[in-house]
């Protein structure tokens, strides 16, 4: 089972990220993925997060108890949810938007300039999909194939190509990073 928190601010596609991974896991990987979005009465524009629980069996408790993975796309989101990350957790963040403290426990951190990559690809708005590609490479929550099916399902038709490019870009960056970590000489 994996408990995942996506955090950022309204407009970054934080809820959408939870939906894409949840959909990939539940529809294309045949797991159980339960996504809940949390917002206060003030809702739009401000801090925003979604929580996703992915499991091989039915998800009974739909909220995060101890997060296994935090995907942070804003400093405020990181500051708010860093504490719920377990000691063996995994932190994935946009390195241009988040400046993490030194991590507690054995937390592993993975940084990516997702928003910068997205801008280079043509549209800042796909930064969340860049980070989802990176997420797919780093974690074993969802399969690459499932994500490739879930993304076109979840974005407007005219934006599919751009989103798929963004996903591949993040995914390849993640694979490269893992390779470098395994074999620092190269």
């Amino acid at each position: 089972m994996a408990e995942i928190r996506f955090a950022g601010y309204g407009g970054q596609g934080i809820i959408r990220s939870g939906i894409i991974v949840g959909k990939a896991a539940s529809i294309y990987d045949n797991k159980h993925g339960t996504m809940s979005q949390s917002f206060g009465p003030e809702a739009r524009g401000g801090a925003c997060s979604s929580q996703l629980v992915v499991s091989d069996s039915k998800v009974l408790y739909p909220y995060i108890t101890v997060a296994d993975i935090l995907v942070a796309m804003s400093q405020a989101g990181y500051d708010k949810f860093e504490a719920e990350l377990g000691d063996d957790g995994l932190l994935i963040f946009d390195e241009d938007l988040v400046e993490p403290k030194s991590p507690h426990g054995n937390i592993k951190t993975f940084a990516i300039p997702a928003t910068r990559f997205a801008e280079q690809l043509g549209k800042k708005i796909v930064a969340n999909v860049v980070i989802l590609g990176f997420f797919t490479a780093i974690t074993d929550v969802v399969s690459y194939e499932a994500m490739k099916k879930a993304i076109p399902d979840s974005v407007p038709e005219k934006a599919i190509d751009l989103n798929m490019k963004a996903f591949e870009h993040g995914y390849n960056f993640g694979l490269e990073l893992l390779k470098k970590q395994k074999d620092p000489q190269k």
Partner: protein
Amino acid sequence: MKANPKHVLTGVYYIDGDVASGYGAMAAGCRFIAGYPITPSTEAFEAFCRWGPQVGAMFIQMEDELGSISAVVGAVWSGIKSMTITSGPGYSLMMETIGYGAMLETPFVLLNIQRGGPSTGVPTKTGQADMMQSRWGSHGDYELIAFAPESPQEMFDYTIRAFNLAEKYRCPVMIMSDECVGHMTEKVVIPEADKIDIEPRRFYTGPPEQYLPFKPDPDLVPKMAKAGDGFKLYITGLLHDEKGHPVSNEEYSMKYVKRLVDKIRLNKDKIIELKEENTEDADIVVVSYGISSRVAVKGVEIARQRGIKVGALRLVTVWPFPDEKIAELAKKTKAFVVPEINYGQVVFDVARCVHGQSNIVLVPHGGAGVHNPADIADAIEYAAKTDKQIEGVVEFKTRLEKLVFEGGFKLKE
């Protein structure tokens, strides 16, 4: 009768409970929704609005909830299936007309996505504190049906079932969901239209001059006619005779009100839906509904790991209440544990049926969140270890309550 393929969005979706209910209404043949959008139920309206107009369905945003439910009653009498959707204070505003619907034997569905209360409460978070209001909220004597779904898939399935039972028994049917399920996104499978059973309206087909709008069939439910189709229809919230004309005598009141309650009570066995698990040789039985029943399964698992023999009874329908089932379980069960997101509502109906034969432990929750499964497990353990008989309902103290009321609680953003 099977669903109309044009109304069924067959496929596999990843949607939240609200949206699933909106799609369920479509599949059930709902052609009209009137409402006043309110958090956390708004996504259900949106889902219906996105697809409904393409197949001739209509949504009207009314001036308020009083207007909304009145428009729904009117729409049903024009011959179509109809629903309203609300939450929190909106639900309170609808109470008077729920009774009007029951009195006029108007089949409609009301989806209530319960939120934290009372009053404006916590609009964006969950609660289960409207349960008694759903049963007793309108004045006068009547019976109705209420479901408590626990997942987006059930929101789809039971919205259809709610429409079907409304037509079958000609009464208002409540879907008593909550914010957690409403805003929970999961896989939902919408089957082919020919796999979905639809209960058609009981239309009168005889000669118009002989039509009596409130003359019951042998199962106590009368047939309907469409307003405007040439039948004589007299519709009033006053006590009425078979023609629909006002009457006020004691004998008639007895006859009519008894039929309103009996058409549900005598058909209870066909209406009530329960999910029972391992209750045969259980010392403790957890009775729950909606999101709490889902979280309770985790509590039950923890308690079983501690070696306690515990079973679970899930109320898929909460009203009518399964009196006989609880009474039967009480004969062989040491104690009942009832988690609900309120300070005691359905638990007192459990107590009524247990009738002092077993202990009863309420696991309360003040709203804006769901139970910690460990609290439910602890309550089960407490119930298993308590040998003396305790009068009334024991209120279990949860971790959060200890934190809040016994110090150590810091306000967290």
